[in-house]
């Protein structure tokens, strides 16, 4: 899906990148995702940020806990299908009250062609709630910057754990 989208659709990943810079996020852990492809490229190109590819999403929870322990702000980028993988590792965030900012691209909720994405997509928010991670949503490009900024304030000034769910309608259903 990356590379064939409109100028407006290109703008929201750049808005996220601008927020991550503004909040001085230093470690960005991710599992690759089409919706985050542009943002991931920007992070790799920024010498002030460490791009940390993961083999599975729960690794990122532990990496970012270590980052926070050592004084670095972090963010975790992933797709909704990876949220279930994080559940037990989120005990680290909950028990130790580590800050957590997760930016999650949604699959399985809007025009999804692949039914295998629906079970986890439809329970993504519930999975976060199960472990006391706050969730906020952005479904329109113009809402992304504000939503990420508000979440970042809760995380980096308040020490909260917050996931921003980026709706599939925003990203566009994957076309095969």
């Amino acid at each position, binding site marked *: 899906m990356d590379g064939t989208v409109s100028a407006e659709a290109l703008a929201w990943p750049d808005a996220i990148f601008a927020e991550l810079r503004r909040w001085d996020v230093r470690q960005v852990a991710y599992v690759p995702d089409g919706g985050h492809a542009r943002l991931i490229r920007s992070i790799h190109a920024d010498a002030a940020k460490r791009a940390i590819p993961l083999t599975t999403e729960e690794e990122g929870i*532990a990496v970012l806990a270590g980052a926070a322990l050592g004084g670095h702000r972090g963010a975790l980028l992933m797709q909704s299908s990876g949220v279930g993988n994080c559940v037990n590792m989120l005990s680290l965030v909950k028990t130790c009250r580590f800050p957590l900012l997760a930016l999650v691209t949604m699959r399985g909720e809007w025009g999804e062609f692949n039914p295998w994405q629906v079970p986890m997509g439809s329970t993504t928010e519930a999975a976060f709630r199960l472990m006391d991670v706050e969730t906020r949503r952005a479904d329109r490009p113009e809402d992304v910057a504000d939503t990420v900024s508000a979440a970042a304030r809760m995380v980096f000034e308040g020490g909260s754990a917050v996931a921003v769910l980026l709706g599939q309608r925003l990203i566009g259903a994957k076309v095969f």
Partner: protein
Amino acid sequence: MLDRRDVVARLLADRGEALVVTGLGAATYDVAAAGDDARNFYLWGAMGGAALMGLGLAIAQPDRPVVVVTGDGEQLMGLGAFATIALQAPANLTVVVLDNGLYGETGGQQSHTGRGVDLAAVARGCGIADASRITDMAGVDALAAAIRAGGSAPRVAVITIDPAEAPRVLPSRDGAYLRGRMQAALGLAA
């Protein structure tokens, strides 16, 4: 055969500025037995996450050695960590796996390493060139010296230990307290 408490005590005897993250179970008790310290972060859960927590900490604190002390079972749950660490290649990170080939906390069931899986070979295969197996105290002393001296790449040391259990030494289980005291020791706002 090496006694786990002797190994960890020797490893941390002259730790300098090192920050230590422990994997849940006996590795946590071993590090506590070597002496509590505000720069120790003990995991009591988050199985499979110790080495990765060490990675985030090592990137954030590049001027201090970061030592992860964990067990074979904990590391087996997070094998991908070796691949993720290899890509970042933090020079100040050492992952020490105390390998007794069994799950001591749950009844002594044989682990995959007890049946032939070689964690040092896995780490090397992932791209961590300095991944070795240690079977004697001279090797432990050399490892401690290497940690103090620093280096240019991450290292993994799999230390074969006696499977005998040691008396439990239980450090704090209050994760928020453990976080706050290490951050204070680093001069960071909690």
